[in-house]
């Protein structure tokens, strides 16, 4: 049975694509056959983050329009054996996506034996974002610890409840997970940022993880390496924990407490 997971947020720039790439890679590293689909038609980014932008020949819209076969459009990831990327089209807009088309693609992925389909949602609450969550079984709502991001996540949770197929057909609702990203324990400590507990209290959705703010994410994006592959980086550990919790394992939260630098560190610098 294929599980469809949407990575969504409402607000832009919170880390949906970074999370989609890392999360899909994490599932693949665990041995699950995974496909990650870029729903951001017209503003294609996932291929860059996954480092496969030069291998895009056919895209999601080509498949929906019957101009290419799904197998022609799927790009095999260079890091993971079991991971495939379905890139968005850069030259079209979101009206090129149809509900029937998306459904047909997801059905075909199911036939091909995929365990997980990860849908990287565009920002906003319009067509692209709604289609990305329509077929979801689970949703990872990516939220930054600030009020506007929380408000937008709340909105998208409402849309999830009303517009997903599960809601429309009266089935068990989409399982919701809260992922707090770009978290800076120091700024929380200084009172400049909401704590992850505040965010969870506002949204009332089970927390699946907290991803620390990190410069290495930028480096990883520029290199086209999903953040989960960064050896020894806190971000990679945090994403690995997220995947483990998603698969039902218990993992304590890491990188959420600020430790004041000691005297020696302050004297001799260091990060």
């Amino acid at each position, binding site marked *: 049975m294929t599980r469809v997971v949407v990575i969504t947020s409402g607000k832009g720039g919170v880390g949906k694509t970074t999370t989609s790439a890392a999360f899909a890679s994490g599932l693949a590293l665990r041995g699950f056959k995974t496909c990650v689909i870029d729903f951001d038609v017209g503003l294609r980014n996932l291929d860059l983050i996954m480092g496969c932008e030069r291998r895009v020949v056919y895209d999601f819209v080509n498949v929906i329009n019957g101009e290419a076969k799904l197998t022609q459009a799927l790009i095999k990831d260079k890091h993971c054996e079991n991971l495939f990327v379905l890139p968005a089209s850069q030259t079209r807009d979101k009206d090129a996506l149809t509900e029937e088309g998306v459904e047909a693609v997801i059905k075909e992925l199911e036939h091909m034996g995929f365990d997980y389909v990860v849908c990287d949602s565009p920002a906003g609450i319009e067509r692209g974002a709604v289609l990305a969550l329509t077929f979801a079984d689970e949703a990872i709502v990516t939220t930054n610890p600030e009020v506007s991001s929380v408000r937008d996540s*709340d909105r998208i949770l*409402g*849309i999830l409840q009303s517009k997903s197929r599960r*809601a429309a057909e009266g089935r068990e609702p989409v399982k919701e997970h809260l992922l707090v990203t770009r978290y800076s324990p120091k700024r929380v400590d200084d009172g400049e940022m909401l704590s992850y507990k505040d965010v969870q209290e506002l949204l009332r959705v089970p927390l699946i993880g907290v991803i620390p703010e990190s410069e290495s994410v930028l480096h990883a994006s520029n290199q086209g390496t999903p953040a989960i592959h960064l050896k020894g980086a806190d971000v990679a550990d945090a994403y690995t924990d997220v995947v483990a919790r998603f698969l039902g394992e218990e993992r304590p939260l890491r990188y959420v407490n600020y430790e004041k630098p000691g005297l020696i560190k302050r004297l001799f610098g260091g990060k």
Partner: protein
Amino acid sequence: MSAVQPPTARPIDFRDATLGTTVAVLRLVEPHLLADAMHKMLGGMPDFFSGEPAILDFAELAGEPERIDWAGLLSLMRRFQLQPVGVRNLAPELAAGARKAGLAVLDGIALGERGAKVPAAETPPQRPAAAPVPAPAPAAPPAAPVRAGTMIVERPLRSGQQVYARGADLVLLAGMSNGAEVIADGSIHCYGPLRGRAIAGAQGDTTARILSTNFGPEIVSIAGIYKTFENGIPAALAGKPAHVRLTGGDREHRLALEPLQLD
């Protein structure tokens, strides 16, 4: 055809049923004037009637019109999602036109009636379309005896969602977020955070109340008397169980916000 039918099946059966209808009491018959009035009343809630059958009542007509533009009247009603099925209290010379327009003339048929059905007066008109709320639409309450129903919402209400408990109390079992809006003709009970806009007594019931175990709304209103919280929620109430009601006499209603004692 008959071969397909089982021999015992009758081609038609008659069963007794009671139909919940809306009675639209018209004081004017000019479609354009009515359109303006209905737009004013329902502008923010184009789906208020959600396809209910309606009986047009002409008892309170101001003056006897010479003719009635039935086609215009019916298309207006349909535009507001009402389905006119009949007329009553109509002068006999006009009733013929109604029959021709396909409406039943229902004089002398008793209808179990309730009070006036008025949408919330202070909902700002023409809000952007809210996401449809998964909560069940309030079923038509039994015609008689008059008993207020209760509408229960079990899932958290999210920003942008809107719920209207028509002719009923509203119970929120999972709270509501900032940017959501709940409207009830009766009281609002919120077990969980109350963070959006809460409008009770929307038809003018001054005895309606708003109760919450975790108080933090953007706006509260009872029977049109409202309060915003520009300077924040009073510290004694913020995030705590609280209770809103109207106090004062008929002319000097004031909203009273009080802590609520739980055990």
